[in-house]
């Protein structure tokens, strides 16, 4: 048979229209043999996912991850070496349930609190938590006439108890992450590693939180309605980004080289987005996009 030498011959060069199912070349084979045929990448990726129906991710989230891929890998797909050696996996989750709680207030610029539920089932046992970020993405770049300061308030909730209503964690965690707006931004990354660390580390699969984003003018008077820095419709409920270190043999591990300088955040390119870290941690200031080097 065509695969008698045990190699799958995939025609290169000539346009090969696989009219039949992708696996027709190796049919009829039962599941175990079919997987045995596959090289590591496909076996790992395949795991029966090849034709599994899949939900389509949010287009903004996909655009962000494509940009992240471009900043992490070369054109040929080889991981760049100038990246943090701490993680080799980044997962983006969009929330399952979102219902707005406290209505937003145009005058004070508060955005409605959004109740978010993330299912982290895709995180495998060998992927160890390093960092997490809430990603607010905008349909169109946001810019303001003057500096605007935003504070992200995060309340972590215990998973629903048997009585059905989620009870707040004893100390509702207010997370003050301040960032300034001066330029056009398409997204904001808010570092939420501290509140999520205990939950993810204890292998909690469902993360339930309520998020509120309040923006005021840098001079602390609430912006007038006309100048409301955040138009609610622009704001999409945030996605959750997990930076993980996969310790399996198949994953690529790089070594911490001495000359690697730790930078506050390496999201998907600094120019289009803003990374905000909690106060008192790496940098209270929003990360300044690097100036063009002369």
């Amino acid at each position, binding site marked *: 048979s065509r695969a008698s030498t045990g190699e799958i011959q*995939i025609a290169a060069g000539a346009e090969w229209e696989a009219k039949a199912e*992708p696996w027709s070349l190796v049919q009829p084979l039962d599941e175990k043999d079919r997987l045995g045929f596959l090289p590591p990448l496909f076996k790992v990726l395949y795991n029966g*996912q*090849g034709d599994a129906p899949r939900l389509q*991710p949010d287009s903004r989230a996909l655009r962000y991850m494509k940009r992240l891929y471009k900043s992490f890998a070369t054109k040929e797909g080889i991981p760049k070496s100038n990246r943090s050696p701490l993680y080799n996996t980044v997962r983006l989750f969009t929330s399952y349930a979102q219902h707005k709680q406290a209505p937003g207030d145009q005058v004070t610029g508060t955005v409605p609190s959004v109740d978010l539920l993330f299912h982290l089932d895709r995180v495998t046992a060998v992927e160890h938590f390093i960092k997490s970020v809430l990603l607010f993405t905008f349909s169109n770049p946001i810019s303001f006439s003057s500096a605007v300061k935003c504070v992200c308030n995060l309340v972590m909730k215990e998973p629903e108890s048997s009585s059905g209503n989620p009870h707040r964690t004893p100390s509702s965690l207010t997370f003050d992450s301040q960032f300034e707006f001066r330029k056009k931004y398409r997204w904001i990354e808010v570092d939420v590693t501290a509140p999520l660390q205990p939950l993810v580390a204890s292998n909690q699969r469902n993360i339930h939180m309520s998020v509120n984003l309040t923006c005021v003018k840098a001079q602390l008077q609430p912006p007038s309605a006309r100048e409301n820095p955040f138009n609610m419709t622009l704001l999409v409920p945030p996605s959750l980004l997990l930076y993980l270190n996969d310790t399996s043999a198949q994953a690529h591990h790089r070594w911490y080289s001495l000359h690697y300088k730790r930078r506050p955040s390496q999201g998907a390119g600094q120019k289009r987005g803003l990374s905000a870290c909690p106060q008192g941690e790496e940098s209270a200031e929003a990360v300044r996009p690097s100036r063009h080097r002369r």
Partner: protein
Amino acid sequence: DQETIGLEPQKPLVPASFNLSEYFKQFLFPQNECELHDFRLSFSQLKWDSWIVAPHRYNPRYCKGDCPRALGHRYGSPVHTMVQNIIHEKLDSSVPRPSCVPAKYSPLSVLTIEPDGSIAYKEYEDMIATKCTCR
């Protein structure tokens, strides 16, 4: 490395009209030598572009070619490879000659859509052959 004890005045070792390429012809290089070959495939050929977002094209490369008898250091082959050659020639021809196989790889970054709609960026080891050897 023979010691030449010249009695008469030193004659030039290499005569002026010597042709280097002719000199090299005496070393038998196999035509189909063990080396790296490209194999560019795109995930759309496998109908996997619906969930493998990047890279679109992937060139794992492969090693193909003959392993010459006199391997020497050219292929970075371990001594065992020459031993296997000798066994094949002198003792038991059913023992195969050394094969042309990859010796070094580079990793690959992949962006995929998971069944639950989440998006994953992963880096996998040993995905692209970068060097061949005979062993």
